[in-house]
C-alpha cells in the first residue's frame, strides 16, 4: 500500500497517530488511504479507462483477426498468425523497421550532442543568455506540431527557402523533402532542431556541478578538455542517462513529422514509412486493427528491452555524486 496522501500532506498528524491505542490507527489509516485513492481517482479512472484497459484489450485483439468495422460475432482467435505474418510475410514491415532504426540511430545522438553543446555555451549567467536559452527552447515548444512540419516541407521542397539559400552559392539543391534519398534526412534535421527540452535538462544538470571542482582542476593546470572529460561528463552522466533514455523512446515513436511530410503515406516510395506510421496505416487505412495491435505490442516489447539494455549499461558510465552505486 502506498503512503496515504494525508501522511504526506500532514506530517504533523503522524505523532498523534503513533501514540494512540493500537486499534484506532488501523481504521483511521484505512480511511485516510481510501481518501487518497478517492483524490487520485480522476487520474486513476483516466489511466484505467483510457490507457490500461484498452492496452490490455489490444493485446487480446492481437491474437484475433479483428478488422476495424467487423461485428464481434465474426471475430476469431488466430493464435500467433499476426505475429507470424509480420515477421515472415510483410516486406513493408521490415522496411519500416529499417527506416525507424536509421532515424533513431542518427537523430538521437545528434540531438543530444546539439543539446549538450548549446547547454555548455549557455551555462554561464552572462547578459542575454536568458534570452538565448528561451530562443533555443522555442522550437521544442512547437515540437511535434503539424504547422511546423508543413513549414519544414515548404522550406525543403524544390522551390523552398533552403534551395534559394544554396543558390546564393551557385549550388543547385535537390527537392529534399520530396526525394526518396533525402526525405528521411529532412525529418532527422527537424528532430535535431528541436533539442530544447534535453538542453534545459542539461543546463539544470550543469548548474549542479560545484564550481570548486573546476577551480581545483585549474590550480592543477588541467586543460579545458580535461575538465570537460573528467569533471563535467562524470558529474553530468546521470542527466545524460536520463536524456538518453527519454530521447531513445521519443525517437522511435516519431510520427507527426513523417505523417505530415508524406501526406500520411510514408512516401515518397516508403522512404519515411516510420514504424508508428506503418502501424497507423495498417489500423486505419487497411482496417487491420488486430494486425496493428500486434505491431504495437512488438514495438512496446522492443522499446522495453532497449530501455532495459540502456539501464544495464548505466553502471559502467553513470556516476552518482552521493557515492551510492546504482
Amino acid at each position, binding site marked *: 500500500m502506498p503512503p496515504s496522501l494525508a501522511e504526506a500532506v500532514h506530517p504533523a498528524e503522524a505523532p498523534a497517530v503513533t501514540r494512540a491505542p493500537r486499534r484506532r490507527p488501523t481504521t483511521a489509516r484505512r480511511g485516510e488511504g481510501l481518501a487518497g485513492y*478517492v483524490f487520485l481517482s480522476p487520474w486513476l479512472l483516466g489511466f484505467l479507462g483510457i490507457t490500461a484497459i484498452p492496452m490490455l484489450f489490444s493485446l487480446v485483439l492481437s491474437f484475433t483477426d479483428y*478488422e476495424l*468495422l467487423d*461485428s464481434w460475432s465474426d471475430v476469431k482467435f488466430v493464435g500467433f498468425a499476426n505475429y507470424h505474418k509480420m515477421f515472415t510475410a510483410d516486406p513493408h514491415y521490415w522496411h519500416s523497421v529499417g527506416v525507424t532504426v536509421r532515424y533513431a540511430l542518427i537523430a538521437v545522438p545528434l540531438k543530444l550532442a546539439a543539446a549538450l553543446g548549446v547547454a555548455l555555451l549557455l551555462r554561464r549567467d552572462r547578459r542575454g543568455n536568458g534570452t538565448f536559452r528561451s530562443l533555443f527552447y522555442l522550437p521544442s515548444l512547437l515540437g511535434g506540431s503539424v504547422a511546423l512540419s508543413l513549414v519544414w516541407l515548404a522550406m525543403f*521542397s*524544390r522551390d523552398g527557402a533552403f534551395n534559394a539559400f544554396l543558390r546564393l552559392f551557385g549550388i543547385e539543391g535537390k527537392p529534399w523533402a*520530396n526525394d526518396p534519398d533525402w526525405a528521411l534526412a529532412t525529418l532527422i534535421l527537424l528532430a535535431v532542431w528541436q533539442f530544447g527540452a534535453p538542453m534545459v535538462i542539461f543546463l539544470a544538470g550543469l548548474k549542479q556541478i560545484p564550481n570548486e571542482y573546476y577551480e581545483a582542476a585549474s590550480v592543477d593546470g588541467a586543460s579545458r578538455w580535461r575538465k570537460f572529460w573528467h569533471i563535467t561528463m562524470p558529474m553530468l552522466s546521470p542527466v545524460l542517462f536520463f536524456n538518453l533514455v527519454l530521447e531513445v523512446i521519443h525517437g522511435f515513436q516519431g510520427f507527426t513529422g513523417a505523417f505530415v511530410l508524406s501526406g500520411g503515406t510514408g512516401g*515518397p*516510395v516508403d522512404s519515411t514509412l516510420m514504424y508508428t506510421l506503418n502501424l497507423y496505416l495498417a489500423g486505419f487505412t487497411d482496417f487491420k486493427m488486430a494486425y496493428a495491435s500486434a505491431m504495437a505490442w512488438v514495438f512496446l516489447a522492443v522499446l522495453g528491452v532497449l530501455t532495459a539494455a540502456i539501464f544495464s549499461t548505466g553502471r559502467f558510465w553513470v556516476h552518482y555524486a552521493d557515492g551510492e552505486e546504482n
Partner: protein
Amino acid sequence: MPNTAPLAPGGSPLDHVTASRRTLLRGLGAAALLGSAGVSLAACGDDKPSADPNAPVELSIFWWGGDARAKSTDAALALYTKAHPNVTFKKTWQANAGYYDKLATLTAGGNAPDIFQIDDGALSEYAERHQTLDLSAYKDSKKIDVSKFPPSLVQYGVVDGAFAGVPTGENTPGMIYDETAITALGLAVPTTGMSWEDLITWAEQVTTKSGGKLYGTMDPSADYKALWIWLRQQGKQLYDGKKLGCTADDVAKWFDLWKGARDRKAAPPADIIHTANAGDVTKQLVVTGKAATSFLWANQVTELAKATKNKLGVVAYPGDPSAQWARAAMYLSIYKGTKHADTAADVINFLVNSPDVGKLWGTDRGLSANTDVRAAVVPGLSDANAKASSDFETQLASKFGTAPAVPPKGHVKVRSLLITYAENVQYAKATSAAAADQFVNEANAAIAG
C-alpha cells in the same frame, strides 16, 4: 520562506482542513452517484423507439467538406425541420483529411451517426461489413424515390445486392487544363477524344514552347481513375469481382507509357508529380503552375478555380470517352444501428429529390442525381466553372459506357499501393515490370483479405 500562512488562533488549522475535506468527500460521493443516475436515466430516454410520428427525433448527420458545403447543408436541413418540426439534427462536419478515420472509429465503437456521407472508395468497406442499412425496401416502396435517377447511377450504389448508399449526385473523371497558359503559348487546348499518344505529343510542345517552365501534362500513372479508364479502353477493368481485372503486363505497359512521357519532358520529374499524387486540390499542378493539365473529377474545376487566376477548362480523359461512366460523386448512407431508420430515409429522400435542396447545393455534391432537379438547377448556375463542368457532363452523358460495379473492399489500399509503385517507377527505384508485378500481387492480396 515567502509564503508563511497565518495560523488560526486557538487550535491547529489542519484539523479544520481535515474536517472540511471529509464533508467535501461525502458531498462528492453523493454528487457522483446522482450524476451517474442522471446519465443512465437520460440514456434510457433515448432508447425507446416511438410509435408516435410526431415524437421529437434528433438525427445525427456527418459529412466532409468545406465552409460552403456546411452552409448549404445547414440550409437544406433547416428546410426539412421547417416541414417536420419534430425532427432536428445534430450536425458534424470536417475537412476530408481524417474524415474516414473518425467515421471508422465511431462505427467501430457503435456510435456512428444516423446518416453519413461516403464515397465509392469506402462504400464497399462499410457495406460488406454490414455497417450500412440495406435501403432496398425503401427504394421499392419509393420512400426513397430514385425513379428519376439514371439507372446506372442507382446501380452504382448497390453492393452485394444491397442498396447501401443513395447517390447525391453524379460526376465523372475530367482532365482539367489551364486555358490561359496554353493559349498564351499559341497552342490549341486539348479536346475530348484525343488519344493518350496525342496528349503526350501535345504536352511535349507545351514544355518546349514554354522553355521548360511549364510541363505539358501531369503524369497520372499513380491515378487509379486514369489507369481504370485506360484499361476500359482496351476492354479490361480495374476490378473483376474480388480480384484485379488486369495483369501485371497491362500495368507495366501503363507505367512504360508515362516513363516515355517523362523521358520526352512532356511530364515533370518525379518530385513534382509526387506533390500532386496525394490528391490535395490546392497542390494540383494545373493550379501550382507546374503543368498545363491535371487529372481529377470534372466537378472539381469549381474548387480548383479558386486557387488560380487563370481560366480553366475541362475535357474527358484521353482516349475513347465511352470508357468513362456516370459515377456517384458521393452517397448518403444510413448506419445499421440507427434507431430512426424511417425518419433518416425520409430525410435522404428529401435531400436528393427536393428542387429547393438542389438549388441550395448546386453542383457541390455532384450534378444532381434526380434528372428533373438537375434540369431545374443547371440553367440557374451562376458560377461559370460550375456551369462549364455541368455542361461538360451533360455533353458527355450520351457517350458514357456502362458503369462498373462499386470498387470492392480494399479499394483504398489499392489506391495507395498504386501511388507507391507508380512512384517507384517515377523515381527510377524500380523497373516498370518489377513495380507492376509487386503492385498486382499486393493489390490482389488487399482485395482478397
